[in-house]
């Protein structure tokens, strides 16, 4: 079969919308979840899985695949939605999300879920693992890329900067990192928890190829992924800083006072679905 799973005649807008819908349905199963983050990152994941990455849905461990490392394990609900949309995880498992014996635990774990390449939960791990993955792929002469998604809050972790320095030192141009800048952390706005700007300047000073885009503008996200992939062979790791809007696609969640763990009342899941359905792309 083809090594590319891009579905036929399905627009990227529709992929992103499907991912949002899968995520909201999972949130409803448990009555909770990091749904605002899932909604904000859906466009990035749609671009990764339906524009940029190489993989085989029926063979998640295919050696020639691009690796996707979810560093912010609490975004698992979003990645599961993407894996379901990509056909790596069957649709029917959606309703098991977060339940006993489910392959879809609340926080992403490598041994549970096909297509989940690392165990998250503890923040700041992904970039270090990605450095090792990239070194290993280069050793093997593979041209597979390593994508890793992490959250702006993880920039507080010293280990993230260890890995950022190391990726440049080892010239890991097969690494494409995406940081979700939604400006919210567990204790409040990132600006008050730990200021991390100016991010472009910092990352460029560390030797990375840096792009900053509206993470909810699919055209710009696609262009950023394309430019990052084109860095291969140029000796620099790539960072895509994706500025996103928590709750994107569900207006009443977008407008809600922003919280790391957003409260959604029982009756609101159906309202959220209805709101999404109103914006359904063709």
């Amino acid at each position: 079969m083809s090594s590319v799973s891009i579905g036929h005649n399905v627009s990227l807008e529709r992929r992103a919308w499907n991912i949002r819908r899968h995520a909201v349905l999972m949130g409803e199963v448990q009555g909770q979840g990091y749904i605002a983050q899932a909604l904000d990152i859906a466009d990035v994941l749609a671009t990764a899985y339906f524009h940029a990455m190489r993989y085989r849905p029926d063979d998640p461990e295919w050696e020639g695949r691009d690796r996707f490392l979810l560093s912010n394990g609490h975004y698992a609900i979003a990645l599961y939605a993407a894996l379901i949309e990509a056909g790596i995880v069957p649709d029917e498992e959606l309703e098991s999300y977060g339940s006993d014996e489910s392959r879809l635990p609340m926080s992403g774990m490598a041994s549970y879920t096909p297509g989940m390449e690392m165990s998250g939960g503890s923040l700041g791990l992904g970039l270090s693992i990605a450095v090792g993955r990239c070194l290993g792929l280069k050793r093997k002469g593979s041209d597979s890329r390593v994508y890793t998604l992490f959250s702006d809050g993880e920039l507080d972790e010293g280990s993230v900067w260890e890995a950022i320095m190391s990726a440049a030192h080892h010239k890991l141009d097969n690494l494409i990192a995406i940081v979700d800048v939604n400006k919210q952390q567990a204790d409040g706005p990132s600006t008050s928890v730990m200021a991390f700007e100016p991010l472009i300047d910092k990352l460029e000073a560390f030797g990375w190829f840096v792009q900053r885009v509206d993470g909810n503008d699919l055209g710009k996200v696609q262009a950023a992924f394309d430019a990052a992939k084109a860095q291969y062979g140029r000796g620099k790791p790539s960072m895509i800083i994706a500025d996103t809007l928590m709750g994107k696609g569900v207006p009443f969640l977008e407008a809600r006072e922003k919280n790391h763990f957003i409260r959604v009342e029982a009756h609101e899941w159906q309202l959220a679905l209805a709101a999404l359905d109103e914006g359904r792309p063709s």
Partner: protein
Amino acid sequence: MKPAAANTASSKLGAGKPRLTTSAMIASIASEGQRTKPAPFGHALVEMAKEDSSILGMTADLGKYTDLHIFGQAFPDRYYQMGMAEQLLFGAASGLAAEGFTPFATTYAVFASRRAYDFIHQTIAEEDRNVKIVCALPGLTSGYGPSHQATEDLALFRAMPNMVVIDPCDALEIEQAVPAIARHKGPVYMRLLRGQVPLVLDEYGYSFELGKAKMLREGYEVLFISSGIMTMRALEAAKALEKDRIDAAVLHVPTIKPLDTAAILEACGRPGRLVVVAENHTVNGGLGEAVAGLLMRQGVHPAFRMIGLPDEFLAAGALPTLHDRYGISTGAICNRVKGWLG
């Protein structure tokens, strides 16, 4: 603050002044005149890497201090310098293992067990990655003070699911353990003796087997159960105790986890022996408590004593002084055993 003069500085001191013992970061724990082999880990890893191309070396700015530089010289393109960044070291080791390689990642035991614990726990142990963590300065083998004295590493790694934990005694054992842990699929933590490493076990016809305890000598009054350098000390103590007509057996337990429960139960089940567990580690959570827990669970109740490091931050100073002070020198062991036997 007490001055710690280096050996070379003694000539500058007044001739009448007593020469001070040193607290320098000595490269060997061998006593004077003891038979040694240089850098057994580095040389054994080179040999193993010749037949297993998946083996890589990684370090966090301590290649020369963990004997990994020997591997680096032999296989420069298989040697990764990760900088003084232990979290990165182990995260990247996990990533390389996920791509099918067998990284041997080295640093000091304190930095692996304390600074990078969560990284090892999550990216290596939980993901069950084939990473070999090999760490110098285990227990009290540095006089530099608590920053470099890994007195709790065995307890920490014993507590970690999936982790195999090895505390080798000497150069021979390290040489044999390297291929054994390389062939074992899964995470391993091994304590490392570096530099000029004592050679002891060849006299006992010893061979290392992962997960196996070995009876090195028999005796009917005392049973030492020991790991690491304390096996060397227990053997010395057993010899010295002969002069007092005390007959001591030594059961060497290099694999702390999984514990060779059968061998320990069999040895402890023999009646009439005082069981003395000796470890280069805090008495909290190491081999002593592992053996004690096993014996309690199995209803085997010999007279039981533990020799290990106290639950405190240890002093800086010269190792012989410190080993005497904290009761893990051969002399201190003999005195305590004689006291216990009355």
